[in-house]
């Protein structure tokens, strides 16, 4: 119990005079999550839109597939990515293994289905009248995409926030692909896992609080996009 309190004080201590390792971990986390979010949004929004906006046969099966991808275990993704980027693997020469890039790739795979599934659902809820209106106002395919996503912006925002939470907190990929190398590929979450394994629960809590603080700041800035 008491280590919760201890962890709290430690968290403050970390932030005020945090050691290099903490800062590098924070930095790594930010870099990786930002990158993977950018990628997964770039890919997921259009896919989600297409699935949600148009009616085509096999649509429901596609949805089922995407929903299933929501249940990809991070370690599993880690293993897959590892298989490709290990020195023996087909992409070995790029030397993505034990790099933040590698982690970002994995996390993109993790976030993509979330963005896609939630975007599709939100877009599906769009009023038939809107589609009609856009077409009748002479909107082209691109206009329609952008306008529709903007009309359901709060849904999209929710999708992004959810995916962000998933990416920020995942351990499996960072461990497997990043290697949790101190000062290099150690992220906050892998650090937490490590400290916990060491039995340094207080430090685990402290790092956890730091992570949550970061998430809070991000969400706070996003919340200004919300309906006033």
């Amino acid at each position, binding site marked *: 119990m008491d280590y919760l309190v201890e962890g709290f004080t430690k968290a403050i201590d970390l932030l005020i005079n945090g050691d*290099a390792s903490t800062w590098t971990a924070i930095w790594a986390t930010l870099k990786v999550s930002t990158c993977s979010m950018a990628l997964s949004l770039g890919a997921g929004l259009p896919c989600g839109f297409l699935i949600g906006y148009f009616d085509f046969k096999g649509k429901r099966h596609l949805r089922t597939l995407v929903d299933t991808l929501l249940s990809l275990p991070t370690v599993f993704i880690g293993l897959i990515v590892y298989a490709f980027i*290990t*020195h023996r693997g087909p992409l070995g020469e790029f030397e993505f*293994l*034990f790099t933040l890039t590698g982690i970002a790739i994995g996390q993109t795979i993790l976030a993509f289905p979330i963005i896609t599934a939630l975007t599709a659902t939100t877009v599906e809820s769009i009023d038939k009248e809107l589609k009609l209106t856009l077409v009748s106002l002479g909107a082209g395919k691109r206009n329609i995409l952008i306008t529709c996503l903007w009309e359901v912006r709060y849904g999209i925002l929710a999708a992004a926030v959810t995916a962000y939470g998933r990416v920020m907190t995942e351990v499996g990929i960072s*461990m497997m692909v990043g*290697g*949790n*190398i*101190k*000062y*290099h590929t*150690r992220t906050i979450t*892998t*650090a937490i896992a*490590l400290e*916990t*394994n*060491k*039995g*340094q*629960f207080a430090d685990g809590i402290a790092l956890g609080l730091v992570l949550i603080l970061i998430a809070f700041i991000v969400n706070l800035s996003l919340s200004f996009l919300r309906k006033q």
Partner: protein
Amino acid sequence: QAENKSLMMATTTSTDGTGLLDYLIPYFTKETGIELKWTATGTGKALALGQNCDVDVLLVHAPPAEAKYIKNGYGKDRRQIMYNDFVIIGPKEDPAAIKGKKISDALAEIRNKKAVFVSRGDDSGTHKKEKLLWKSTDKPMPDKESWYLQVGKGMQATINVCENKKGYTMTDRGSYIKYQSQKDNNAPLTILVEGDGILLNQYSVITLDPDNCPNAKYELALKFSSWMASKNAQNLIKDFRLLKQKLFIPNAE
């Protein structure tokens, strides 16, 4: 009744990972009728679990930490059960040319050559031992050096990183054998330094101090620790083979 005939143990990944427990415990249950469950974690967490009385008994390998643990009154009657030994492994090419050297010289070489060395860096028994070895080179513990990678992972994962980084690392023999077997015996990493006395890796059973943890099943724990020390169990340990190779050498008094 069966409820209090069951025992909870915290142990280290190596005992579980090598499959020793899966091999050993059924005998224990058969002979004593005590069901034993175990959770395999880092030594540090294992000790912490004991300290919070969440388990009844510990099987760990970090003598200095254990001593401190008992001194703090968390644990009681530590009993040596067996040991295996650590080895330094590295690429066949052996860039730092440490093959056959004394352990302290070997590490010194690695430091001079700035050859990649991969460390568990997770405060596990193995990691504690490694730090001990670095101390024996009477140079400061490497930390931020670019060639010194602290991965903070289990042994296999660490060996894995080591292979990919073409570096050196220290591992317990069991884990190495397991790794070797997966590469069906043409592994890029081979044993370069071994047999040094300081490389021994002592496993002990520790029962929790009933004063600290009244709820812990002290009696059963004692039964377990004495069974582990018994002739019978020791023989079983002696006969335990992982891929036709001895792993643990029993040494209970």
